[in-house]
């Protein structure tokens, strides 16, 4: 038991200092791999410094939130000229998420993600907490009109920032008992949850943390990367 605790402590200390966890290969140089797209994503955050304030989160959580979406900024910059969403949006609005679940906007948020966040926000936060947060509970139901309003919100960057803020707050509630081996482990956990879905529970998220599914092509190429590692790359550089 003592040895295990010591190993965990060493692992936590090592991870917190930015060392690679045992069994993981050194992280690639994502700045070099994604090149101009990486720089574009950094520039976007620099030109939209208001996002940090709009998140209304403690500084450490705002830093985490930006890192969580940073890989999506890279991807959006790579595909924005080629994506066409009308058909997908129409299918989602008319027939629901089973007929159209797609990524929207700078933070590449899916309607199903927004639905989950809206539902958890209503379920996990008291009216008093929501009043303090300053975002009212979302309308409930699954009508075409409600789905269209959700899509319109996702098209608006200011609303994407609000959803990102709510995601961090919801994660704090849902996984308040989860133990993290330092801030970087927490960042990787949150980033994976954002990218692969957060509702499946801690074990499911941790199982996905080392998957290499991230890419910037419209369709999956041979070379893919680990989403959480790309997020971590920005997290470290933006300290």
């Amino acid at each position, binding site marked *: 038991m003592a040895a295990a605790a010591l190993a965990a402590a060493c692992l936590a200390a090592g991870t917190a200092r930015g060392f690679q966890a045992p069994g993981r290969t050194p992280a690639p140089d994502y700045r070099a791999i994604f090149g101009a797209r990486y720089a574009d994503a950094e520039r976007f955050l620099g030109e939209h410094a208001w996002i940090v304030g709009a998140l209304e989160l403690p500084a450490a959580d705002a830093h985490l939130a930006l890192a969580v979406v940073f890989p999506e900024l890279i991807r959006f910059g790579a595909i924005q000229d080629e994506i066409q969403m*009308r058909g997908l949006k*129409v299918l*989602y609005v008319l027939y629901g998420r089973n*007929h159209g679940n797609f990524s929207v906007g700078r933070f590449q948020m899916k309607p199903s993600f927004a639905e989950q966040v809206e539902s958890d926000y209503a379920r996990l936060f008291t009216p008093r907490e929501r009043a303090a947060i300053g975002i009212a509970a979302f309308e409930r139901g699954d009508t075409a009109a409600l789905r269209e309003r959700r899509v319109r919100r996702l098209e608006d960057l200011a609303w994407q920032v609000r959803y990102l803020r709510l995601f961090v707050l919801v994660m704090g509630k849902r996984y308040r008992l989860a133990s993290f081996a330092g801030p970087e482990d927490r960042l990787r956990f949150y980033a994976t949850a954002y*990218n692969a879905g957060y509702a499946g529970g801690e074990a499911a998220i941790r199982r996905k943390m080392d998957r290499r599914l991230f890419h910037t092509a419209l369709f999956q190429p041979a070379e893919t990367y680990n989403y959480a590692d790309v997020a971590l790359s920005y997290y470290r550089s933006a300290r």
Partner: protein
Amino acid sequence: MPKARAILVVLAVLALSIAGVSCRATAQEVSRTVLSTLAADEEPEVPEVECRTADGDTVLMTKQGKGPNVRFFVYKGGKRHGPFTSYNEAKAFGCDAGANVGGSDNAVYEPGPPPEGAQFTGGAAGAIAFKGTTFGPHQIVFSQTITPDGAIAYVTAADNDKAWLESSDGRKVSFRGTPGEVKVSPDGKSAVVQVEGRMSLDEMNNLSKLTPEKITKALEDNQKKTLFTIDGQVYGPFDELDNVWFARTSNALYYRAGGQIYRNGEVVKGAESASPNDFYPTADGKAWAVAGYEKLTFSDGKEYAAPLALAVRLEKGRTIFRWLALEKGGKELVAYERGM
């Protein structure tokens, strides 16, 4: 966010020369053609990319079945083709070589880059020049814009006492405040600048000399936005100005303020909830259509199923819409054409 593109595989779209649309719709007339009734297990899914053939047609793909039994079909030229056993095989059939990948025709005009060689040059005493026209010299040059045909250039700049929007054909307007983004009309002859506040450079530099009350008032005024066109029209100031744009189908200036859409300063009635990206006015502004995600609405009150893909073109002064929609609970594929 999770990427399930591997299973998204119906490249939907509208064949612009859909064979079934045999009669050309005239203004106000609508042609409606049922292209196909989808099979019970055939799903109208669309991926994030729309494919158009080299001659401008768009193509619809559907997916039928699951797992190893999945099959793909292509709706092209008004006919159903297939089955294809893989997405790539269907896409290769659906999209001609050199096909463009891109979106439906956007309602908002987005100017392309100027032709190669069309550029500003340095002028005397720090001024800049375009095709023999000199701009300035000014204290600050905020923006330089050249129209896609390379014919006209626009510059925003400021001196100590006032700011400017100038064009290379000799038009010039001045104002106080900080010039922001410049929008240019599809024909390149109109331009508008969105200006924040009302302070000149001098006034901003000497703000500390004002009384606290005047500073507060000046900063409040600085939140307001005003539009100045190159032809001298002024709209605003606005406490809230949500969007400013030129529609692809019109050279009139549109903006949204206070929950209303305006055309050259006049309210467009009935289009309050429209997003600029969905709003298609005629050139004269007398009619419009809003392509939402629930329905396609025309200013004459007619409503249709929302277009999965939409093609809009100008033809002899009319605006022609062609679109593909799903009806009967998503099982009937219908092609429409309507003039406006």
